């Protein structure tokens, strides 16, 4: 059984603090989000490397851009829902179009805010940001990915959006795993179907594969941590060699991981069954992140059951 690690958000802030101690050019910008971004220790230790703009997400993105234009390595940290909706035009123009070295950190992403409801959920961020030229989108799955992406963000030199949840995550990858933004990680290989997951749904896909193994069904599991640029090569290879593809994401079924996979399957004339799991287009049910994901067919058990259906087993 894999060990349960820390919340990815905590790993983010610890990693950033370690890096910022070594590199005074790293500046964090917050919008009254120091606490929710787990950046209180950062603020205490490195007060000259944190800028607070108050509850003003548009300003947060603009100020981050200005700091980057002045040569800083900037991490703009704000709840994913507000950052990627209210400040979308600033992301589009001031960060992406202007090609600045800003990493936008969407905290408490997806449905991490649980019972706080739809105002606080970001199930649109992949879709909106995918349609913005020059944006890179990353959703780390476990603590390893959560830390590695920050280390790489520092020298990425281009616009980056990284979304983090706040519940403890299961360790999936051994520390020897190679992480590169834009290159997916093959967690395991199996000849029956391929489950592609991103962010915090990876652990659910992984647990589903353990259930399926008991029925002698062998899955490949791909951690598609980078939504854009998409690792087409790996995905196409696996979809050509699998009996079915199942995608799992903590996002609307529109415009995210699943539709990206569907587009690649269709445009490459690949004959493979596909099922997309995500949040459907409806007034969302209320509950904790775990309960809501379970409700929308993303419990490990349900993922296993749907996998069997896809394989007619």
């Amino acid at each position: 059984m894999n060990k349960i690690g820390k919340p990815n958000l905590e790993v983010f802030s610890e990693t950033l603090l370690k890096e910022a101690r070594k590199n005074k050019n790293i500046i964090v910008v917050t919008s009254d989000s120091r606490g929710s971004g787990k950046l209180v220790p950062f603020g205490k230790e490195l007060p000259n490397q944190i800028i607070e703009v108050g509850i003003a997400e548009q300003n947060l993105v603009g100020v981050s851009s200005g700091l980057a234009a002045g040569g800083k390595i900037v991490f703009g940290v704000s709840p994913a829902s507000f950052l990627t909706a209210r400040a979308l035009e600033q992301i589009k123009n001031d960060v992406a179009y202007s090609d600045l070295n800003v990493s936008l950190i969407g905290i408490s992403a997806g449905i991490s805010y649980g019972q706080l409801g739809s105002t606080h959920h970001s199930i649109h961020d992949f879709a909106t940001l995918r349609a913005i030229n020059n944006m890179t989108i990353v959703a780390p799955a476990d603590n390893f990915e959560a830390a590695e992406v920050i280390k790489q963000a520092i020298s990425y030199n281009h616009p980056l959006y990284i979304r983090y949840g706040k519940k403890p995550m299961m360790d999936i990858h051994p520390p020897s795993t190679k992480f590169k933004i834009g290159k997916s990680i093959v967690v395991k290989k199996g000849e029956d179907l391929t489950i592609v997951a991103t962010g915090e749904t990876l652990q659910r896909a992984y647990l589903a594969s353990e259930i399926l193994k008991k029925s002698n069904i062998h899955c490949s599991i791909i951690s598609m941590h980078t939504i854009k640029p998409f690792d087409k090569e790996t995905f196409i290879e696996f979809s050509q060699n699998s009996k079915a593809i199942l995608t799992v994401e903590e996002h609307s079924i529109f415009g995210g991981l699943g539709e990206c996979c569907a587009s690649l399957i269709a445009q490459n004339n690949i004959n493979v069954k596909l099922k997309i799991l995500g949040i459907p287009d409806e007034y969302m049910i209320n509950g904790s992140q775990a309960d809501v994901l379970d409700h929308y067919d993303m419990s490990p058990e349900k993922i296993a059951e749907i996998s069997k259906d896809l394989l007619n087993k």
Partner: protein
Amino acid sequence: MNEKNLKKKSLEYRKTILEIIFQSGAGHTGGSLSCIDILNVLYNSVMDISPKNFPNLDRDHFIQSKGHSVEALFTVLCDCGFYSKKDLNTLNQFNSHFIGHPTKKVPGIEHNTGALGHGLSVAVGLAICKKIDQKNNKVFSLLGDGELSEGSVWEACTTASKYNLDNLIIIVDRNDLQITGKTEDVNPIEPIDKKFKSFGFETISTNGNNISDLLYVFQHVPVKENKPTVIIAKTTKGSGVSFIENQINWHHKVPSKDEYESAISELNEKLNSYE
């Protein structure tokens, strides 16, 4: 540069603005003519920005938040030697970087603007950066008066004040008009000075189409230590060409051949008076 030469330059710049808009068939005539004297004084007498030092960050910075008046900015940057007139003449042509709003693909442009209400936050970020790095450079940002309806402008003001950005100088191109009509009819923004003051700014009003007034004002900024400054530059939309001045329809109207020739001859007459 002396005042007389700056005044002549302003007339020459107006001719170029009209020429490139006329030749390319598009442009924001009214706003470019209202802010051209401000840009002239900034680039030729105030700011430490040149093609030579531009790649280096130890210099002043200019963010034109009212990006649509780009023909004025392109004209001044061309004269300052950032690119040739031949390059500028590609304005609005297919595959040219000289388009209807500033982009960093054009030498001398600091930041991509065009959507209103963005530039000031970026300028604030740059000004904070200068403070962190303990550099004495200033950051200037030109805003339109209609643009002040954007809420993000005021978000940026709170941060400018919080961080005591006396290295930030905002210039409001107060020409009283926006695309629909008078700013005070569309969505009143007065009292502009009191609004900025209440956000922690020092304010100065001046005639933004008067070179000597502009020179005087820019010599006196920042007004107070630890305070950001806003210069409310009273201008005339379409300034310098009698039949374009204060006409709402000239917001982005392109002159006809007759209008173009008439405008050039009016400007030439003024230029001749300096000879």
